[in-house]
């Protein structure tokens, strides 16, 4: 579907653009999406260059300056061990982005494979795979992540696995439905006719043409993965101290909330801004990638 409309729509009254350029062109029209993209670029930059950008090390304690409110030396103040909150947030971006992207990759690979197989082969394969996914969907996502993380134990890798697996059924469903909508098209039949293998047809023809909903879901998925991971860390299932994770920082500052609210304020604000940016971008991408929405 997207192949046909792309060429038709773009050539009608403006210059022909490649797929990506066309999407960027439409994305630029949405100020909120661009705002989201900007914030995410900034966070990625901070995460990559944390060693250079952060004014202090995330583990550097300064017991003479505990619970300090924001000042010139510590822009966002210090925590219960006198550690610089801003630096910890910057290092924490590494953890959160890692969790977000890797968890979504896990979900995408597992769910995508299952969904593509279910949609492409149909029949019994479809039935078995989707019934199993139905069972997993009967457990709310956060809860499933908690259940898996509780069994695996705390730690970064386990956190990613738990969040990733809990998101898998969603991707399986989305991939399956977009594969289903493409499977019956003529160009797939043509590929069959010239003797392409199933694997080649799925990889070369079906997946590229079903990317739009998957990209949107993945962008929003990174947001919910980061949110879930922060929630798990908050109840003590994720990253263990002293590693800087936003949810864990919030959880640590919680007991001092009455006297030193800045310990919880900034980590929460960081989480919210990140999620908000990803959501704006995801929404913008959905509009930009959906040919029906074109205005």
């Amino acid at each position, binding site marked *: 579907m997207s192949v046909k409309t792309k060429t038709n729509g773009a050539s009608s009254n403006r210059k022909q653009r490649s797929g990506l350029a066309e999407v960027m062109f439409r994305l630029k029209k949405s100020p*909120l999406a661009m705002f989201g993209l900007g914030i995410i670029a900034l966070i990625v930059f901070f995460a990559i260059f944390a060693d250079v950008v952060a004014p202090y090390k995330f583990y550097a304690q300064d017991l003479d300056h505990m619970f300090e409110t924001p000042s010139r030396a510590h822009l966002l103040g210090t925590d219960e061990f006198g550690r610089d909150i801003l630096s910890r947030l910057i290092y924490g971006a590494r953890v959160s982005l890692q969790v977000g992207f890797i968890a979504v990759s896990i979900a995408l690979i597992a769910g995508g494979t299952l969904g593509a197989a279910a949609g492409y082969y149909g029949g019994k394969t479809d039935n078995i795979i989707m019934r199993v996914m139905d069972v997993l969907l009967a457990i709310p996502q956060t809860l499933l992540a*908690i*259940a898996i993380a509780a069994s695996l134990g705390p730690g970064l890798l386990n956190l990613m696995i738990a969040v990733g697996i809990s998101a898998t059924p969603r991707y399986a469903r989305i991939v399956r439905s977009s594969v289903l909508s493409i499977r019956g098209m003529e160009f797939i039949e043509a590929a069959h006719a010239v003797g392409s293998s199933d694997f080649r047809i799925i990889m070369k023809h079906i997946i590229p043409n079903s990317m739009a909903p998957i990209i949107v879901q993945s962008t929003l998925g990174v947001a919910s993965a980061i949110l879930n991971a922060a929630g798990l860390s908050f109840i003590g299932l994720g990253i263990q101290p002293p590693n800087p994770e936003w949810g864990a920082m919030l959880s640590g500052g919680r007991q001092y909330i009455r006297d030193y609210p800045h310990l919880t304020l900034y980590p929460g604000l960081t989480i919210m801004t990140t999620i908000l940016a990803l959501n704006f971008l995801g929404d913008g991408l959905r509009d930009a990638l959906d040919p029906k929405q074109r205005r």
Partner: protein
Amino acid sequence: MIRYILRRILFLIPVIVGVAFCVFTLLYFTPGDPARMILGDMATEEAIQNFREAEGLNSPFFVQFGNYIYRAVTKGDIGRSYMTKRPVMNEIMQAFPATLKLSFFAILISIVIGIPCGILSAIKQYSIFDTVIMILAMVGLSMPVFWLGLLMIILFSVHLGWLPSSGFDTFSAMILPSLALAAQSISMVTRMTRSSMLEVVNADYIRTARSKGQKESVVILRHALYNALIPVVTLCGLQFGQLLSGAILTESIFAIPGVGRIMVEAIKTRDFPMVQGGVLAIAIVFSVVNLAVDVLYAFIDPRIKAQYK
């Protein structure tokens, strides 16, 4: 109609068995010996062996799973807490009403606020009101429930002193947790109502209703809303599951004695049967709620009624 409902109820059984299987498997592969955990570090090797034999812990995996299901169905026994040594079922039953109450209030708030906001946003599409509501909804979606809860405590309990920061007995104590928990679903319901209204308001029968001179309020509320609500009802069912699991975080922040708080305590003390029991209980309630939504469908959507006549 009856056939549809029966079919849906029958479909619930494999789903619940499947969920139980997941929970049991997770429990089975969790490191740590249940016998050792229940009897304590002081127990002799012999006592542990006897306990393993008596509880069937030496049997193969699927036999154990069969026993687990059998005991769950006949005696309501889903294991025993490592910490309190009491049956998990009792503890969860005791705590569940608070969690249900919290989720119920939250879904009520989401409907009462979300649907009107969604309608107004849709009929005033691209107005300032619409833009503000949509941005607010996005902020609500992006707000971690545990942070919102803490912010509310800082503002309303610590600074203003208007509302208590913990407990769940009085009405005033329920306001903050329910609102904090509801924030995300308010946003979801608003967005869903808006988009589903927008799809409906351009339909032919709406134009017909207008052209025959029907009052605008009747057109919107009766003709459009009634049809636009169907996906919103589904969403509310799904949201209930999100709320039940969101309640885990909310309860631990506001110190509400519900299933969530039990689970968080259990996670900290590595009391796995308790954690997985909570998961099982919430998943079952979630499935039942979705079943109820599907049955409700049969009443509000004439297309389903027609299919099963």
